[in-house]
């Protein structure tokens, strides 16, 4: 774990702007808020770890506090590091299952024809709820019968024919749950004249392991990914906002790894594409006669990176797309947080106002860059949620 950066929390002026933007503060009086859990608490914890207040477990690591802080304090990082250092693990088995996406995803997708219906049975959900602690009400993702990597190996030959290539960090969601997004990414890159390559070896980025306190496993995954990224020639593109933040920032800020290779090469596909269109290197030809009404939800991690700019500007290029950008609110899922039985109600309360905005918009679809936001919004509104790459792939000629 990275050592405390003493000068960081000392920049806090106690203005409480972070407290005002914290989505957990609004719904949960047990949470002391980012200022107290972060810079204030850090002073005490450094003095004596006995001051550790376990209610900081409610922090979603949405990082809205970091966006709002006028003094550049990495409030979310301070809280996450404190959690990893001082918290006593609870619900270890459940948390391990939720965060070991490669292990569970690998198993579930292998047995997908059986796993999906069984996992969907009310009885299974009841057992998972009462024994394991995964809420029976949460909108669980289903598993793909054919993993993305497997599909990709069947088309790899066609990709190698392209002169120019990009690397793709698909992440576990694309691999095990939603390979369609990876396929859309390949289609879009091919339309731009680029072939796609996968990294030598890739593991889950580790965002869920960090959130659930499995530091050693997260570090192991980080080292594997960083080694592959370093070896890769050219840019490593991503389609998930949280994977991107983890690879580029959390590996360093939380896990203390040197992620200069990731900072240099890892790039959201929307940014890569926008920059090339902006420079006139790529021109997208769109289908004619489109008529789509969509809303865009900015994931908290996307806002933290500022990269929603690229998604929004790219979407504005689509003729016939009536797009409105929703007010930035947290959807409440926070990765694995909202799946946990004890957090489900809180998670829904946080998302309620966003769900209302989406319903009131009367849009046909919601666009967002984060897979867990997608599950939460689909569960909360019953509407279809797509990654911007999927929408772009479906509207190009």
């Amino acid at each position, binding site marked *: 774990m990275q050592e405390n950066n003493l000068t960081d929390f000392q920049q806090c002026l106690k203005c409480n702007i972070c407290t005002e933007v914290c989505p957990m503060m609004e719904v949960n009086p047990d949470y002391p808020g980012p200022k107290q859990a972060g810079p204030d608490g850090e002073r005490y914890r450094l003095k004596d770890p006995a001051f550790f207040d376990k209610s900081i477990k409610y922090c979603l690591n949405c990082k809205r506090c970091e966006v709002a802080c006028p003094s550049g304090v990495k409030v979310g990082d301070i809280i996450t590091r404190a959690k990893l250092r001082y918290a006593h693990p609870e619900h270890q088995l459940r948390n391990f299952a939720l965060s070991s996406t490669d292990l569970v995803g690998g198993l579930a997708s292998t047995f997908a024809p059986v796993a999906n219906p069984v996992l969907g049975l009310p009885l299974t959900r009841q057992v998972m709820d009462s024994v394991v602690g995964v809420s029976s009400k949460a909108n669980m993702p289903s598993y793909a019968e054919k993993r993305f990597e497997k599909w990709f190996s069947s088309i790899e030959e066609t990709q190698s024919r392209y002169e120019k290539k990009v690397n793709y960090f698909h992440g576990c969601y694309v691999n095990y749950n939603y390979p369609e997004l990876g396929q859309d990414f390949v289609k879009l890159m091919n339309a731009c004249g680029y072939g796609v390559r996968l990294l030598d070896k890739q593991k889950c980025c580790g965002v869920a392991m960090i959130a659930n306190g499995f530091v050693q496993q997260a570090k192991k995954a980080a080292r594997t990914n960083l080694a592959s990224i370093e070896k890769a020639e050219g840019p490593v593109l991503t389609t998930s906002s949280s994977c991107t933040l983890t690879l580029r920032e959390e590996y360093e800020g939380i896990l203390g790894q040197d992620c200069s290779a990731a900072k240099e090469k890892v790039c959201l596909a929307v940014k890569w594409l926008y920059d090339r269109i*902006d420079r006139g290197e790529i021109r997208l030809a769109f289908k004619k006669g489109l008529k789509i009404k969509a809303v865009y939800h900015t994931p908290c991690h996307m806002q933290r990176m500022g990269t929603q700019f690229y998604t929004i500007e790219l979407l504005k290029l689509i003729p016939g797309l009536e797009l409105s950008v929703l007010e*930035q609110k947290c959807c409440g899922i926070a990765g694995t947080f909202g799946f946990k039985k004890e957090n489900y109600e809180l998670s829904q309360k946080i998302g309620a106002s966003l769900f209302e905005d989406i319903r009131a918009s009367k849009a046909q679809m919601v666009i967002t860059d984060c897979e867990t936001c997608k599950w939460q919004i689909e569960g909360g509104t019953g509407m279809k949620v797509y990654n911007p790459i999927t929408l772009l792939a479906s509207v190009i000629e």
Partner: protein
Amino acid sequence: MRADVIIIGGGQQDAALATRLLEAGKKVLLIFEGRKSEDRSREEFRAKGGSLLAGDKVCRVDWAEDGSRVEAIYTEGLEDTALRAEAYVLCSGRFFIRGLLSEEDRVWEPVFGVDVKYLKDSSRWCDPDFFAPQPFDSFGVIPSEDCKALKDGKEVENLYVTGDILCDGIDNTEELCKRII
């Protein structure tokens, strides 16, 4: 990206100005560091179709060779993406939001390094009488008659300045809107 106007915000009036320019048909990008991204006026700007970069910071400026114009700006979040505009508006607020920075013996504007009015003698920055008008309150960026910022005494052609970052509590909003719209 190429916008008509890029507002380097943070100050109180940034979003109201951005919305006004947007409604006049301009393509506007508003960048601001820190503060609540949920400010109602900023949300109104976003909802009306303005481009917003919340919690981001301008980290580099490309100047024309002779220093007379701003060619492009870059932010920490968007890294190598050049942000270009016909006009740039500096509306980045005062000391608390870091639109202005100070050390023991100087006050400066960190984004463009434009000319700032302040007292050289720092012992006179504060009046010991807490309730008296404080001299540092009148520090700030000096606008030209055309509402533009000055750098080493020379007007920067496409860099406007407005809001509470200005010295002596000057309010040039109306003038500035007339010039840009």
